[in-house]
């Protein structure tokens, strides 16, 4: 475990060392939340849409945004950069598991991101009023599902990053991945409000697990049994993607050509 903890520490230190860069990045993202809040505030002014009022939408959007904010640090850029540049060869010769090592790095970034999230929540609560907590059993399931967001989001980035072994290019993959997640995770609009064909598609894909699931549980849109089922679905996708990524990695390293050295 020690080498992995070292990677986690190194990534946290890096976030704290380049804190202006890190905070500026977070600050920029904050405007996405402002836009979403402004749009929905007007839309839900004295009316409900599909059973969602402003009282539910405010915490839902905040949770979706928080999920979007965490695991967004530079780990996947770093991984992609090293694959494209060939320095990934140094990662490959280290006696650690490549996939788990990248996860350890993500966890280091999260420690810094959670700090920002706490400040954000405090700010939103102060400026827009308190948020009602769900009953204890839902709160516990919410906490669990937030924890599961971390490995799930990591796996999306990781699999996208593995694509670099084939494409030698990351920007386009990353943007596509982010766009798909933005729509199908329910981050901007609850999935129930999407046209039914899109909502059904989203229900069969893993993306809902990184925004919709914790959001719906927190605002009490689902009962405890349904919440537990949704959390189980999150866990299911983590297992499937974790193993799938391992399989993909085997194929991916065969693609690697590193010139010079």
């Amino acid at each position: 475990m020690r080498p992995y903890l070292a990677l986690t520490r190194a990534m946290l230190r890096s976030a704290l060392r380049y804190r202006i860069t890190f905070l500026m990045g977070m600050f920029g993202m904050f405007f996405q939340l402002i836009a979403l809040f402004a749009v929905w505030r007007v839309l839900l002014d004295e009316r409900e849409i599909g059973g969602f009022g402003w009282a539910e939408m405010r915490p839902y959007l905040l949770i979706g945004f928080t999920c979007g904010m965490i695991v967004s640090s530079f780990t996947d850029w770093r991984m992609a950069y090293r694959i494209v540049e060939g320095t990934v060869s140094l990662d490959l010769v280290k006696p650690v598991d490549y996939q788990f090592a990248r996860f350890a790095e993500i966890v280091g970034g999260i420690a810094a991101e959670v700090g920002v999230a706490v400040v954000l929540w405090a700010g939103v609560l102060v400026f827009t009023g308190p948020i009602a907590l769900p009953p204890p059993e839902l709160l516990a399931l919410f906490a669990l599902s937030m924890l599961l967001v971390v490995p799930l989001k990591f796996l999306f980035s990781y699999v996208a990053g593995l694509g670099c072994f084939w494409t030698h290019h990351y920007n386009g993959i990353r943007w596509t991945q982010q766009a798909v997640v933005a729509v199908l995770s329910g981050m901007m609009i609850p999935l129930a409000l999407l046209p039914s064909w899109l909502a059904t598609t989203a229900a069969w894909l893993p993306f809902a697990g990184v925004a919709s699931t914790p959001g719906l549980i927190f605002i009490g849109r689902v009962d405890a049994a349904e919440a537990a089922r949704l959390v189980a679905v999150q866990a299911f996708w983590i297992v499937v993607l974790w193993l799938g990524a391992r399989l993909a990695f085997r194929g991916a390293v065969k693609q690697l050509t590193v010139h010079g050295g």
Partner: protein
Amino acid sequence: MLRTIRLYLRLLGTHLRASLEYEADFWLMALGAAMTQVAGFVFIAAVFLRVPDINGWTFWTVALLFGMVGFSEGVINLFFEGMWWLADLKHNGELDYLLVRPYPVALQALSSQVGLNGLGNLLTGGALIVAGLVNTDIDWSPATAVVAVLLFLGAMAARVGIMLACNATTFWLEGPTSMFAFAVHQVGDLARYPLAIYPVVLKGLLGVVLPFAFVSFFPVSWLTGEGGTGWLGLLTPLVGVYCVVLAAWVFRRGLTRYESAGN
């Protein structure tokens, strides 16, 4: 002047040819950019399936706002992408090369990259603008058309100017990335929605400090009569010129601070 433009296009052309060498990159970037625009559009389309308007703005007028922001993004990617590499040029001392060539440094820096994602943004943004114009009830006359073209050019200039000015702040900031400009870029996305939905502080920010509202909101408002602030739209060409002049000034001031990186 003509020579300056011709040289600019030639500089861009060389970088474009170099970028097109990597064909898969080209497709992936264009796809990624288009998908990003589509994601925003799916959101707004899904919303409009449930409500008839946002603060009086109908689906197609909001589509125009989205289109203007997306298209201006594409203009920057394709023709002025170098601005995003300014921090890099500064940090690595590569600006030295540009300083000794007989061509404006700012233009050399701007043309030092071509963002192939621009094509995706231009296509999706352009499609939204066309669809928005076709489906909106606009009283077209030759005069309207001329003014509309002027407003469009002004809006594009405003966006390019704001982003160049923000990227040029790298001369005052440390570090190899333009994080400040990235943050401002996110502010620019607020212009995809009607200005009226924002609190007064943000209206001031978008209307005056970082006049992104002139990239989309005010010109579209003039053309469609939506929002009741159309007369401000007529200022768009002036704001565009102002932003570009300001950006050139910031860039020149910043350049005097440049100290190279040794070697």
